[in-house]
């Protein structure tokens, strides 16, 4: 089963750096695993923690947030603000019991196609080690069925 399982990873890439970095990796034909689905965002500071949680709830196995290096933000300070959110959110999720490595962060500039590929390699590897996400995942549609009849709500997951 785990042999066939391939993690689904959602990557939030900032428009100005990391997205361009991914693009560069593509045009330079630098290979990276096909496990990531990219959502382009204006800035890594735009990431609302709700996005990450929602992705995890919908069964994504890992999340990567990537933005411009410090000092390179198109909006001057967006990545700095994002960095604080990331730091606290990452710690908090791990504290709750979400495995370390499910949610990862990176700085990738528009010139770093190679780095982007490396980051994706690493993230995919980490998440493969963790296995499919279980915590916080909402089981498709058998949820919420007559609450009083749910045998043991803990065993749902």
């Amino acid at each position: 089963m785990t042999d066939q399982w391939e993690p689904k990873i959602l990557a939030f890439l900032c428009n100005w750096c990391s997205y361009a970095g991914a693009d560069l990796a593509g045009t330079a034909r630098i290979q990276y695993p096909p496990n990531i689905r990219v959502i382009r965002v204006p800035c890594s500071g735009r990431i609302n923690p709700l996005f990450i949680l929602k992705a995890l709830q919908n069964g994504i196995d890992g999340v990567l947030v990537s933005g411009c290096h410090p000092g390179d933000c198109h909006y001057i300070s967006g990545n700095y603000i994002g960095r604080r959110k990331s730091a606290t959110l990452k710690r908090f999720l791990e504290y709750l019991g979400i495995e370390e490595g499910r949610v990862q962060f990176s700085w990738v500039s528009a010139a770093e196609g190679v780095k982007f590929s490396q980051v994706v390699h690493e993230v995919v590897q980490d998440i493969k080690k963790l296995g499919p996400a279980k915590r916080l995942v909402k089981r498709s549609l058998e949820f919420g069925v007559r609450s009083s009849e749910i045998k043991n709500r803990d065993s749902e997951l």
Partner: protein
Amino acid sequence: MTLKLDKKDLKAFLETLMEEYDLFAPVKLAEGVSIYKKIDSPDEVDLSTENPQKPAKEVFFPQSETMFRYEKAGKRYQMTSTEGVERERVILGARPCDIQAFSLMDDVFLGKEYKDVYYGNKRKATTIIGLACPHPLSTCFCSSAGGGPFLRKGSDLFLIDLGEMFIVELLTEKGMAFQKNKFFREANTKEISLAKGIEEKASTKADASVPIGGIDRRSDLMMENPFWDRMHEKCIGCGVCTFLCPTCHCFDIVDEAITDKGQRVRNWDSCLFPLYSQETSGHNPRPTGRERTRQRLMHKFNYFPKNFGRVACVGCGRCILYCPVNFDIRQAIKLTSPKEIKKVKDEVDLTRQ
């Protein structure tokens, strides 16, 4: 008919019960916290707890309940209702207050024009084993609300805890079906009189002095009274009192969907939430806590009596016990006396800017 059930037989009794029925009973979730829940193993059942936080209404009217599922097939939808109840059910250990509340819920859900099948099917399939309340709390005022700690009405079977055993009374046809149950034996006169003694003692304990009688008429003139300006002040607008109330029955209907599959679900809702009455346009007919608190109390003590002839409160005291800010419904009721209303009105007038 009065029988008895030895507590050492309780587990075996429940086991046989569970062969035939889906059993619902109080289950302790944490120290001091319990709910009614479907039982998987008789060991879960805890009849020694206080009245559970969440009322027994959840057996008929779950907090979150699927109404139907659907799936898209081409251009059409395949819809499947989940109104059916597969097995007969038993509620074990519901207190008289919660059981009295069932009859109020019946008025709403099984009313003349429309019958709520989700509630009705479960209600019909359920045998109710009530449990007498030997130690009413100081917050209990069932005796003021037309009930009492030993009220048998609504129960099919009724249990009285004598320590080593339960006295079992068979009260209805559904109850009489248990007459031949191998774990029930005839109770002797000594045991019956012991139970009587407990009943007499308990009856004096539940507060019968909360002036609920006539409140529907008294509150008729209160709609625009400044009373409400003061009443709502401390309410923080959470849903504790309404969710834990055995008679509150408001709900929301929502769709939950993933791509082409989904379900329509109803969830408990509370008149104290702003969103409850908020319209899409942004207009809210009950814009502040004042109107929402008024809705909660007036629904119980004015609107409901107008529609069904009795108040929608059974005096279980949960809203008093669990309110985070100690909003006490008994005080609110007492304040509806004409003298008190005038006092409040004068005070408001005096300080109104």
